């Protein structure tokens, strides 16, 4: 079979910021993006947050078409649904049309993507192997991003960055920081992705109440 080869310096081999942990906290919550030609999905499946190529192994339809949402990892075409290992577990008409047993289903598992966290920030990569997120960002930047994401946990009203705010850039991520006030996080769509996959969120520091001991 003909396959396309991805060069080492291609976007498919780089990490891209996707969302925050909060976006994937609920049951069946998902966030999608596209890197090059590859649709990706990160999804909470029974408490596990996992990432796959967002393409059904049956007949190649994109599974989740929306940039984010809440719903089972189920293909809209023929209703194949997948578990946290990417294995199809719901196959309509399997007894009559496919007769796939456990091993056959495992061979049709979704192709995994890489997922990593930096504090509360979630990153994805098409390639299953390669340098870690910390290696790609560098230890100092990784630590700074992690600390900032922990220090600004509260999603709030949108704010426009102002002159004088600190600006930090990492992969497709641009942060504007007003210390003790706000962190505006702009996640640009990766190469190949449409603008609908870009995201901007404003975070605020934890409230005083939240910092009080229980």
């Amino acid at each position, binding site marked *: *079979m*003909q*396959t*396309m*080869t*991805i060069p080492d310096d291609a976007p*498919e081999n780089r990490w891209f910021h996707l969302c925050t942990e909060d976006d994937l906290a609920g049951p069946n919550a998902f966030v999608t993006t*596209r890197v090059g*030609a*590859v*649709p990706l999905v990160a999804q909470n499946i029974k408490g596990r947050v996992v990432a796959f*190529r*967002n*393409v*059904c*192994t*049956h*007949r*190649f*339809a*994109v*599974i989740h*078409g929306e940039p984010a949402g809440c719903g089972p990892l189920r293909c*809209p*075409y*023929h*209703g194949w649904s997948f578990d946290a290992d990417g294995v199809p577990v719901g196959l*309509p*008409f399997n*007894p*009559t*049309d*496919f*007769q*796939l047993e456990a091993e*056959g289903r495992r061979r*049709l598992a979704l*192709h995994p993507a890489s997922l990593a966290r930096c504090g509360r920030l979630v990153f994805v990569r098409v390639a299953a192997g390669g340098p870690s997120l910390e290696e790609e960002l560098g230890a100092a930047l990784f630590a700074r991003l992690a600390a900032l994401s922990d220090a600004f946990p509260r999603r709030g009203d949108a704010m426009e960055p102002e002159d004088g705010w600190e600006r930090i850039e990492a992969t497709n991520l641009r942060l504007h920081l007003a210390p003790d006030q706000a962190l505006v996080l702009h996640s640009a769509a990766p190469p190949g992705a449409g603008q609908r996959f870009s995201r901007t969120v404003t975070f605020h520091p934890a409230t005083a109440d939240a910092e009080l001991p229980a």
Partner: protein
Amino acid sequence: MSAHPVQSIVPETGTFLPHSHFWTGEAFVRERERVFGRCWLYMGVFDDTNLLTAEMAGLRFELRRRGEAMEGVCRDGERVRPLQIDRCGALVFARVAQDGGPTLARHLAPYGDRLAMMSANCLNPQPPVGIPFQANWKALVENTMDDFHGSTVHPDTIHPAVHPDWQTNLVTERHGANSDSRWLLADGTAGWWAKLDAKLRLRRFAEESVYRHLFIFPNFYLATFFGATVIPHRIDPVAPDASVLRWQLFLPTTRLETAREQAFHRSTATYLITSASTVIAEDRPVCEAVQQGRPGIADLPGFTGIYGRRERRILDFHQAMLRQLAEAA
């Protein structure tokens, strides 16, 4: 033991089209020459204008009828080639003139006689409809020959219109590139058509309570309901990732005389066109989802998909395409 032995097929290399054929310009150009520049293609049913035109993969087909004689050309930019034109009943087909190649009857085999019989119902034509898809034309072919996405894609339209035990009552004939599927209509649907028949006195080519889908390679299918209504469809390639599904409803009656009968016929035709458009609007997102998804796994070796018992027509189409593309120009 299962009543349906040997179900799914994971295709081997060389038995289905490479994924890249669904989006590359190179594949599109090759198909223009070797498929649309060579095969018999459905052109339409002549009306009072005595003209038929079509555009497929950048080729423009122009046909004219003078009495019983038909002539036409295929334009490809500055290049103009004569057409060979033939009929199957009322259905007009053409191909770029060439030495050799199958006759139209051979190309339609074994369904020529069946198509000719059904085409006698190409009466009371309604305005042609064209619906654009942001998907390669072959994704639409795969969709239309996929006999089991009804419950997921058409849960409120086609799915309840066919017999609840559709799996038992679906009959599919496969003959290489061409195939025919017949679905038994649900009792309620058949009853609706029977009432329509009583009011409109439909012309019926067969006493059958089925939805029929007869596919002719490479891009034509005739849908029929109740052995009466016929809807020729053609999938026109526009670009590697774009196509137009063109179709025309014929609602044949044996009597259409009074103003009341004509008004009822008009409103019924409008209702049927709206219903068919709704079904196609449901198919469009999944065809486009496949168009978006397929390039996303093209770098993975062995990512071939799987074809179940009711998806064999799709592999038949892939294999016919491979044969056609391999033919010497």
